[in-house]
């Protein structure tokens, strides 16, 4: 379906890791996206500005790549719109209930060898693989 791209994958991964490390050493914070975005919904003045700045940076960084690389296939959503909405609701609710997502649990928590994050990461990867198997090969 998509090509295996280990070099750009590794390079992008290292950049993501550097962003996480920067957030940790400068601000002493976990760069977990669901926590940062979800935190914006409960306005606490001292926390809102840096969260909004991080989210703006996320959009700008990705946009810079899309403009420079002129990569038309950078984002391809294959799911039909009703499924997209259901998926978004589940991702929003689930990441807040489970206290994190791929970045917070997968990159920060796993790096801290947190028991909770290892269990959460194994759970969401396992369930996501099962979901793809069911929707692509069974249904």
């Amino acid at each position, binding site marked *: 379906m998509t090509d295996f791209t280990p070099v750009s994958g590794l390079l992008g*991964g290292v950049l993501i890791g550097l962003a996480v490390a920067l957030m940790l050493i400068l601000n002493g914070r976990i760069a977990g996206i669901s926590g940062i975005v979800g935190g914006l919904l409960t306005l606490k003045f001292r926390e809102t500005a840096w969260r909004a*700045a991080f989210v703006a940076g996320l959009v700008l960084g990705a946009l810079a790549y*899309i403009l420079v690389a002129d990569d038309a296939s950078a984002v391809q959503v294959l799911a039909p719109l009703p499924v997209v909405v259901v998926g978004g609701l589940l991702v929003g609710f689930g990441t807040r209930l489970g206290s994190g997502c791929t970045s917070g649990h997968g990159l920060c928590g796993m790096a801290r060898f947190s028991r909770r994050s290892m269990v959460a990461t194994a759970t969401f990867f396992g369930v996501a693989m099962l979901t793809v198997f069911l*929707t692509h090969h069974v249904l």
Partner: protein
Amino acid sequence: MASGALRVLAALVSGVIFGLGLAISGMMNPAKVIGFLDVAGDWDPTLAFVMGGALLVTIPAFRFIPKRTRPVLDKEFSMPTKNSLDAPLIGGAAIFGVGWGLVGLCPGPAVAALGTGLVPILLFVAAMLVGMAAHARLFTNSKE
């Protein structure tokens, strides 16, 4: 510049690098994420290399940086303190997994891709915010 403004600037820079990394890695593309999750199909192992590359940096970062007395721009480190495996953790991760598998988007790539202006991305992020707000409404007493 006051440290408050510097903290905001640091978050902006971190966000830009994070967004660049997501885009370069290909993980902003749901088709590529599904390609990884679809282990029974035409498997694309790229996501494992992205996680690996990030952990190469984050494992030493989380090992050594918290040994400092404080972060550069703030008074203390804000780290999660919970250690118990409970139902919300596992149930939430499972619910997230279903949504991730259905669309191939998790919060970071979804927000990063907002700049494309694509309708499915806008819809996904809107629905995600509704899901987060629903959680906040239902669990107002729960403190992180």
